[in-house]
């Protein structure tokens, strides 16, 4: 599951930095923007079965690969 999330992130950001540094801030660094966020939420729904409504999403809680993995794990 962790790999699935990282695959999704790597695909969306077009960068393997999300694999190398699991604490990188994907928004500060411009790796992901709002559009990418929406895509990520849709992919997480499709591939990991977690349903995250847009208003549940808060940047400060999802801004690193580690945080995203933790969130997905907690929702499964």
């Amino acid at each position: 599951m962790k790999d699935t999330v990282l695959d999704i992130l790597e695909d969306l950001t077009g960068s393997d930095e999300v694999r190398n540094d699991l604490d990188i801030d994907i928004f500060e660094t411009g790796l992901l923007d709002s559009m990418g966020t929406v895509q990520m939420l849709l992919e997480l729904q499709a591939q990991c079965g977690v349903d995250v409504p847009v208003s549940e999403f808060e940047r400060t809680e999802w801004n690193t690969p580690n945080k995203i993995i933790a969130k997905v794990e907690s929702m499964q």
Partner: protein
Amino acid sequence: MLNMQPYQDPTYFVLLAIGLLPIMVGLLYGRRFRVYETIISFLFLLLTFGGVKWQQGVALIGYIIFELLLIYGYLAYRKRKNASWIFNLTVILSILPLVIVKIAPVMNNGRESIIGFLGISYLTFKAVGMIMEIRDGIIKEVGLSEVVHFLLFFPTISSGPIDRYRRFLGDYKKVPARDKYLALLDKAMWYIFLGFVYKFLLAYLFGVVMLPKISALALAHGGWSWWVIAYMYTYSMDLFFDFAGYSLFAVGISYIMGIQTPMNFNKPFIAKNIKDFWNRWHMTLSFWFRDYIYMRLVFFMMKKKLLKSRIAIANVGYLTLFLIMGFWHGVTWYYIVYGLYHAVAINLCDMWLRFKKRHKEKIPHNKFTEALAIFITFNVVCFSFLIFSGFLNTLFFA
């Protein structure tokens, strides 16, 4: 009866200091005096919406009742069902007073609507945000006292910053630990002091001292001139220091009341591109539009596959966002052009960022390119403010 608009007058601050003192003492000793807080909030609201502005007061009361009915009505409905058309209808009803207030002057020869009142936009954003979170199932219950305190939170009622229900409630229900509250007071003092410098010194200098003179010179010259450029920069500085000053007051007073209202500005003029700019300028508004309009629209379009290209979806998303923002400022040609201008700017910015990503190695990146980026962004933004100011209307069409 006396009427005072928030933060315009040093006397207002004296009244705040007196009124908030018991609250400060309470919080220092780990207690919220909720009854006192409610009374003092009511008095400050009365101060702003009473006296000569009593019609606004009536409009405000009517509006709050209307929005509360919608919120509780939708909440009750949502407990059982979740049809989209009910949600859409509720949102439309919720923004209807604001839409009426924005359109009325266009229909009535410039006369303002009687249902309008100071802060109607910001209250509407708060209410609509709640309705959307009820739809998403994130908000499952709403306490009456809590929602009233949230919507009518007096430090931010006139022009924000725009807070969100769950975040506000988190602060409101708790009492900060003493050392945390002392830190908040410390920041509050600094913010209020900085707000004074911004609003009563710098905005005064740019907006009251310099701007009228530059305006007169530009109008005397007529058409395009260096005076118009001077107007552009002066107006931009005035706009920033005035609004940032106000926001600092609102946040500072919130902090004194133990509520960490989010900040509105973060050094916007050092933004490296227009996307960065909108993460620094009027942040609570920008993020509200991003979260409640852009992301929901993009989510909907992607899920229903309305357009094939994700780039097209992003473009349409931004166009919608900024057009709404333009219209929200007013149904006037220069506000709408302002919206369109930013929509085009941010879509071009996205194009540039995609290009940069693909050609990372070939594009230089150093102190000079960064300075150039900041310079370009600053000017793109200032020109948008020139449009926003309506001065071009005065210059060319009046």
